[in-house]
């Protein structure tokens, strides 16, 4: 097991280095001079000396290899440079917006699993029945519905219901308050984006749970359990579900991708100042230092999540680590 853990962790290094090289190259492919864009964005005039000073400040006058080493070393130290748009350190900007995104992501995972696991199990138990049909359509609809549209519909519903109930439309708050300071305000802000992202994420888990349950329900040990007269709910809970949920663990990695994608658009719909919105703003504002830092952070989070998932899976299923 230790050999597997070390091998799997070591695999993270070349992947992250490759990702860093790709991000570094992508940002250098941007047509034109970043410094000209930066100096010209305010509408003022600038001369060659200002451009040269900007090159020196960003380290763009140095050889490419050294720039890449600097970029990687800066990333390792947590120094992502200064935002080209706000002039503040990138890390400060990210740190200010991180809690809201993290909270939505955690709640979305909870929402997704609360929806997905019972419905996926029920769908498998009632295979080819009208219930199964409805659940399958519900899960495919989750994959087909764009998060931002679901968010807009949710806002529409909140406005109409609150107007009908209280006589005046109500909207969820947009300024973040930590849960320990004002739990009600915090939840009223976070729950709707979490529902939006969670429904889409649940679709994948629901399909996987159904498929895994169908496979397990055909196993000999389930037939044996039935033959010895075990109560059905015990067969489902103790024998089938425990084994069926094993492959569902691997989905956490895929869920992470859905969550990140969902957050990018959902934060825009609900006007939340999270990481996803910061990313979109940095692309819109051509803030390249911020964009490259955010891409690297997202990729690192994604790679680490997948590594942890692989390790958990190997721990749960010995066949993996002995392969």
């Amino acid at each position: 097991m230790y050999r597997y853990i070390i091998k799997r962790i070591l695999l993270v290094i070349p992947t992250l280095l490759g990702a860093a090289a790709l991000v570094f190259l992508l940002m250098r492919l941007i047509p034109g001079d970043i410094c000209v864009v930066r100096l010209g964005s305010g509408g003022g005039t600038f001369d060659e000396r200002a451009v040269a000073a900007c090159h020196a400040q960003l380290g763009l006058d140095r050889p490419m290899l050294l720039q890449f080493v600097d970029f990687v070393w800066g990333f390792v130290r947590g120094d992502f440079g200064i935002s080209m748009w706000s002039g503040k350190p990138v890390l400060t900007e990210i740190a200010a917006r991180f809690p809201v995104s993290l909270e939505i992501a955690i709640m979305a995972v909870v929402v997704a699993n609360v929806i997905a696991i019972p419905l996926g199990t029920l769908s498998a138990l009632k295979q080819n029945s009208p219930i199964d049909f409805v659940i399958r359509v519900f899960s495919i609809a989750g994959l087909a519905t764009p998060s931002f549209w679901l968010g807009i519909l949710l806002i529409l519903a909140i406005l109409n219901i609150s107007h009908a109930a209280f006589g005046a439309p109500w909207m969820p708050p947009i300024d973040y308050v930590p849960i320990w300071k004002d739990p009600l305000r915090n939840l009223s802000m976070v729950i709707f984006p979490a529902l939006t992202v969670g429904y889409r994420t649940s679709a994948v888990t629901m399909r996987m749970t159904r498929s895994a349950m169908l496979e397990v329900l055909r196993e000999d040990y389930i037939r044996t359990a039935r033959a010895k007269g075990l109560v059905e709910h015990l067969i489902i809970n103790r024998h089938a579900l425990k084994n069926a949920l094993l492959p569902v663990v691997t989905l956490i990695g895929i869920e992470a991708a859905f969550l990140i994608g969902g957050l990018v658009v959902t934060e825009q719909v609900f006007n939340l100042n999270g990481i996803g919105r910061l990313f979109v703003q940095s692309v819109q504002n051509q803030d390249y230092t911020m964009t490259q830092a955010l891409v690297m952070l997202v990729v690192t989070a994604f790679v680490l999540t997948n590594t942890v998932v692989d390790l958990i899976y190997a721990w749960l299923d010995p066949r993996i680590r002995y392969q």
Partner: protein
Amino acid sequence: MTIASPVIVDDFVEIRRSPWQRAWLFCRRQPLGTFGMVIVVIMALAGLCAEEIAPYSPTANDFAAMTEPPSWAHWLGTDQFGRDQLSRIIYGARTALIVGFSCAMIASVAGLVLGVGSAYFGGRLDLYLQGVLDVVMAFPLIILALAVVAIFGTGVHNVITAITIPLIPRCARVLRSSALSIREVPYVDAARACGFGHSRIILRHMVPNVVAPFLILLTAFVGQAILAEASLSYLGLGVQEPVPAWGLMLQGGAEEYASTAPWIAVFPGLAIALTVFGFSLFGDALRDALDPKLRDR
């Protein structure tokens, strides 16, 4: 000794079926998939015949008819500039399908070349190629698409590039694993022993055997690409005005007019969801039909 098992007889009958009979069998066995196929065909026809079907120009403003609710004159109402929603949705189908099919086709073909080539040649080429694909796959689709848009800018062509790049390694990975098992079968060894060239072995013996996963991925990618395009356009980083696109229709007034003109938000989103839903149902049915192990799931 038995003469012939019923399974073999049944298989023999299946092989002899005409394409129409097979299509009919698919429709009977896969009602949900057929429903999805009908949605896809309707959307494709709408996109292809937009000029003939759309009652108004998708870009014509009518300031006397701004935010009008659905009526006989405007079946799906008008937007904040008085543009007919139905016409914009019909023309939007063209944009969505152009982006969807272009991304899916380019990504699938590139994935096929990389995946099958990597599996066939193996060795260092396979190792390095898989390393590169692993790195690209570490980027969630929307993040890499946004990074590419940051470089190349917005517009239909750049959106196609931005969405295609992240899809290529996903396709290559799946097709490589299918091709790896085919590389080991005796007829590929026999072809090698006969002295056939690499291209002949790949094109005549390996590619036809990965057509099933290729088609499944293709349909899945069309839906994913339509969703990604809609997301990028909604964020203002995809297709730009005046090109009619569903995501773009939701970007402008959808939230602003949510309470006073909800049809602006409802219908374009419904078009996206229905189309992707159609492709998902069709793709699932295709997978079930092509994979005998999944037929009874």
